[in-house]
């Protein structure tokens, strides 16, 4: 059975600048889940940002320098790179080739690194494979949640069924369908700041649709969208919570961990 690629035992975590600075708990949950699956998590300390904010704003020269830094840091490592964000994953996998299209050397590096990068749920479902599922950990969580489909996760990376599959394995978690789940929340990086009125109108539609589900929690896969929805909910004074899927999965296996009483 030598064709079967070896199951990775070690990964490099690209935690993203937003998680590092604004939602470190998401990163901790990613580590918790991966470690419970027996995977060692390494954190290349030189990492900062992938360059996407500047790239999306038209500042390619600045984006390029930050992308080069990213490549310096991650090309020096080995094995899969896991990122808990569809948007940052898409930047590295899809858009570095735009930045470096006229530079064969950097193009080769970005292709090499791009092939190693996996979004968190994509890695759990597609790389770890059928018989090595997260479900084997017996995840359980009494909660009601609704899934917001983050645009870049779905449309740039094509991660369309993996989150639902993982959430479906959590016993006790009731997933309530959201009307227009596929419609953008209005974040769009600097778009939210530059076109505040439009972005807010899009957010209002999203939050109304999420609230109408009656769920206690919105689950999403991108920290930008999460900060956007959470900021809007807080301003509304709503009790609805927004969590990254890694946090939900972590909570779900944490429950079992506690009942096992294994941790001192």
């Amino acid at each position, binding site marked *: 059975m030598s064709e079967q690629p070896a199951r990775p035992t070690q990964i490099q975590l690209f*935690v993203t*600048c937003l998680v*590092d*600075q*604004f*939602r*470190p708990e998401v*990163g*901790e949950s990613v*580590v918790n889940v991966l470690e419970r699956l027996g995977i060692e998590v390494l*954190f290349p*300390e*030189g*990492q*900062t*940002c992938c*360059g996407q*904010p*500047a790239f*999306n*704003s*038209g*500042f*390619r*020269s*600045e984006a390029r*320098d*930050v992308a080069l*830094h990213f490549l310096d840091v991650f090309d020096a490592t080995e094995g899969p790179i896991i990122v808990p964000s569809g948007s940052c994953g898409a930047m590295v996998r899809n858009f570095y080739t*735009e930045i470096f299209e006229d530079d064969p050397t950097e193009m080769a590096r970005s292709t090499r690194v791009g092939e190693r990068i996996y979004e968190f749920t994509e890695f759990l479902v597609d790389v770890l494979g059928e018989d090595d599922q997260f479900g084997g950990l017996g995840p359980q969580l009494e909660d009601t949640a609704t899934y917001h489909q983050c*645009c*870049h996760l779905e*449309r*740039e990376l094509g991660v369309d069924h993996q989150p639902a599959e993982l959430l479906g394995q959590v016993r006790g978690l009731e997933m309530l369908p959201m009307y227009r789940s*596929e*419609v*953008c929340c*209005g*974040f*769009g*990086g*600097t*778009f939210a*700041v*530059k*076109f*505040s*009125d*439009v*972005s*807010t*109108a*899009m*957010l209002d539609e999203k939050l109304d649709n999420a609230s109408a589900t009656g769920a206690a929690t919105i689950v999403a896969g991108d920290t930008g969208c999460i*900060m956007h929805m*959470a*900021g*809007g909910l*807080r*301003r509304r004074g709503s009790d609805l919570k927004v969590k990254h899927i890694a946090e939900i999965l972590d909570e779900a296996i944490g429950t079992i961990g506690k009942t096992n009483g294994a941790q001192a």
Partner: protein
Amino acid sequence: MLPTTDRFKKGAKETLADPVIQMSMEAVYNGFHTKRQSAGADTEGWEDQRDRGRAIKEHTIENLDYYLEMLTDNVDANGGNVFFANDSAAATEYILNLASDRDVKTVIKSKSMVSEEMSLAHEMEAVGIEAVETDLGEYIIQLAGEAPYHIIAPAIHKSQDQVAEMFKQTTGIDPGDTPKELTTTARGMLRETFQRADMSVTGVNFAVAESGSIVLVTNEGNGRMCTSIPRVHVAVMGMEKIVPSMQDLGVMLRILIRSATGQRISSYVTMVNGPRRDEEEDGPEEFHLVIVDNGRMKLLADEKLREALYCLRCGACLNACPVYRKVGGHSYGWVYPGPIGAVVSPVLSGLKQASDLPFASSLCGACREVCPVRIDIPNMLLHLRQQVVEGPPEVRSVGRMERLGWKAWRFGNIKSGRFRRGGKLANRLGRPFARGGMFKRLPPPLSGWTRSRDMPLPAASPFRDRFKKRLAQSSQDSQSSEGES
């Protein structure tokens, strides 16, 4: 009618505050978009058809000069005249000269986006020619003195009441207010115009190079009236509207109509092969095809933007776009609204004055997902954004503060030490102003965010510090457990 930089935000604000329009725009998603999605799902080999459509456009645009020549030869052979217009002024001049030469008093128009680029109806009225739009939606906005709101549904923003009121003002009689009554009224008003028209101007959905045919896709039958009643028929087309063969046309019609309205086929598909022939009963005495460049060569020359010429003008990207649905068509300031408009308008009419448009998108990608020929609109918007920031001086328009901001961002992100210290500093400076770890108000440019959303304070302990602590903890744990064993 040229777009201006400040128009988008101002227009967006007005539209957001207009409950009638916001309600109408819901129909765009719940109607057109939903029908397009189910039409795709119900069509066998739909994704393959889209691929074929894209391949046809790709091939045609790569060989545009060849097919334009073939088209011209075949229109000539069919007894028609072809005129190439470099810009809308040249096209307008040709048509106005023709009208005056043929002593034309009344022109009927069927829907044509290119003629909107030319403001043709206005130009005709200005020289004393009666020019009447015969597509119901176009007729409504002509009465209102407005530009189209949507590529295929120009009056989508008008409520029934508003239309009834407008008809009442025009005719002096109460038309009633059901859609049927309104349509009947418009029909009555238009019928008489059809009968006395000397000339028609129509658009072109496709021009078939191998046969010299032009094809019109309509649902109201006005297109067919226009191509058969008046003695002179002028068809205007953007130079990209060409397909090589009848076989290709089959593919394009299938994907266009499903993407536009969700229908399998429109009520009318009209094919015109030149003027009336001796053995035919109906049709014009003269047929003119005006092929318009009007900036399209700029798209063709730019490898990154070329695929904008694949556009079939189906409007699917508008229907899917969450921004278009909020800001409406007029905010885009020129003829083409929505995602494709945000690409095409700045190029056709000047990037500097329309520099807001490429940025007015969350880059969600819904447009590319529904585009029948998979035009990568987000990527073209990114390209235009780069032009605004890094392009030649004549297109560049970005403030000094923003440039400085991104320079600082770069500085803080090319070394992880700086990145970490930057976060710590932001935490320390921001802490006195935050409540419960969140900001309610921040200075510009972040005020755009905090106007409607709270913003979190950067974490006192970022992930990288927590991870380090965790590693130290676990190595301590393993050392102590080794010690125990």
